[in-house]
């Protein structure tokens, strides 16, 4: 099956304008993007090109001025606050440059938190969190607090929190931050592995080396998608032109 039915993320002619009149800033101007299961799309562009805006709209953290954002076929604009929050907790994982780990919680508690907020029992949430810790090769470090871990370990905890449970859409904004290149590569490897296992991923980065991990790279300039590399593999991508 091809087409939008199997898209995990779909942006349809999305605009985002901040302010109005002469002071209006057009962060995005008519961007369309489709990301399917097993596909990692990197978004590149200079500062101010709209990369991060695209990611916050994709994650339902902000609403477009015009156009539609769909996650697994659900229009985010049609959801009320409570349902949108639930969809974000269940289906979307975020990795940000600043990790947003809670310093008063251990690694495993940080990872389990979104599941517990979602009503998952403490034991089950803990079990899932431990599995996510294994996935990022931090087995045995679950009881540590963030300040007892290195920067690279903290980033992997943040990744584990984004990957825990059944998240189908993983959104990452410069996820390697200030990490050294080896640790940064390990972080991208994790993202790639989850996508290969069937998730859809969007990676915002200004580093070509990181974008190299993607199946497709799109280039933004002044809020417009100016180009896109051809998908790396898989004829299913070639059957729909909507990703371009």
């Amino acid at each position, binding site marked *: 099956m091809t087409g939008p039915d199997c898209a995990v993320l779909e942006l349809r002619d999305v605009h985002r304008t901040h302010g109005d009149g002469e002071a209006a800033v057009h962060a995005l101007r008519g961007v369309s993007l489709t990301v399917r299961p097993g596909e990692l799309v990197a978004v590149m562009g*200079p500062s101010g090109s709209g990369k991060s805006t695209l990611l916050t709209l994709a994650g339902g953290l902000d609403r477009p001025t015009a156009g539609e954002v769909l996650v697994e076929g659900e229009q985010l604009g049609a959801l009320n606050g409570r349902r949108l929050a639930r969809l974000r907790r269940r289906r979307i994982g975020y990795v940000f440059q600043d990790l947003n780990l809670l310093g008063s919680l251990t690694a495993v508690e940080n990872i389990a938190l979104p599941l517990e907020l979602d009503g998952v029992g403490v034991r089950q949430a803990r079990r899932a969190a431990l599995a996510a810790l294994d996935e990022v090769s931090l087995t045995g470090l679950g009881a540590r607090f963030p300040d007892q871990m290195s920067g690279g370990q903290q980033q992997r905890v943040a990744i584990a929190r984004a990957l825990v449970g059944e998240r189908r859409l993983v959104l990452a904004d410069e996820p390697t931050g200030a990490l050294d290149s080896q640790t940064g590569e390990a972080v991208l490897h994790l993202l790639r592995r989850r996508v290969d296992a069937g998730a859809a991923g969007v990676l915002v980065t200004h580093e*070509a*080396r990181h*974008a*190299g*991990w993607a199946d497709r790279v799109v280039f933004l300039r002044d809020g417009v998608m*100016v*180009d896109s*590399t051809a998908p790396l593999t898989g004829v299913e991508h070639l059957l729909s032109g909507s990703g371009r």
Partner: protein
Amino acid sequence: MSIRHGLLALLERGQMYGYQLRAAFEESTGSTWPLNIGQVYTTLNRLERDGLVRSLPEHEGGQRPYEITDAGRADLALWFVTPISRNDRPRDELSIKLALALTTPGVDVRAVVQTQRSATMRTLQELTRLKYTSDRPEDLPWRLVLDAMMFQAEAEIRWLDHCETSLVRHRPAAPTARSGSPPEVVDRADEEAHR
């Protein structure tokens, strides 16, 4: 690098005949530098002429193995200790192309930059995929070749980003803003839009 030094390095491992050399060469460069058998034999002939290798009696199967000579070993050692000069490499067609694009009427320089960036990015994606899928210990020499190609692709993309930023910053200025400014890089597309 010359093919001759590549073949000398392979023969330093032991005697080999043409097809073995070709296979070993491609293996050690991860097939990033395909050789045809004609190139291998032409190079072997020249190496033999220069006294750097010698051919041995034919095997029963008709294959003629070659071995490295002492002079060949010395040449190879010299190659390893001598840094490669940038002047020995071919001229960079891309930088010349962009420089010409800036001064050729009617060329959309930004489009030239973007087209190249997408193509190089695509190459970088392919290289990353290859590296990601070759993680056996014995793949190390080939991964290092891949790394070099990845760094080169990355550097080219960074340079293209830099070109684009320069094009944006150096729009044709109003007449009053021109004095004392460094030589301008002018985006022809913008220039035409301003007319």
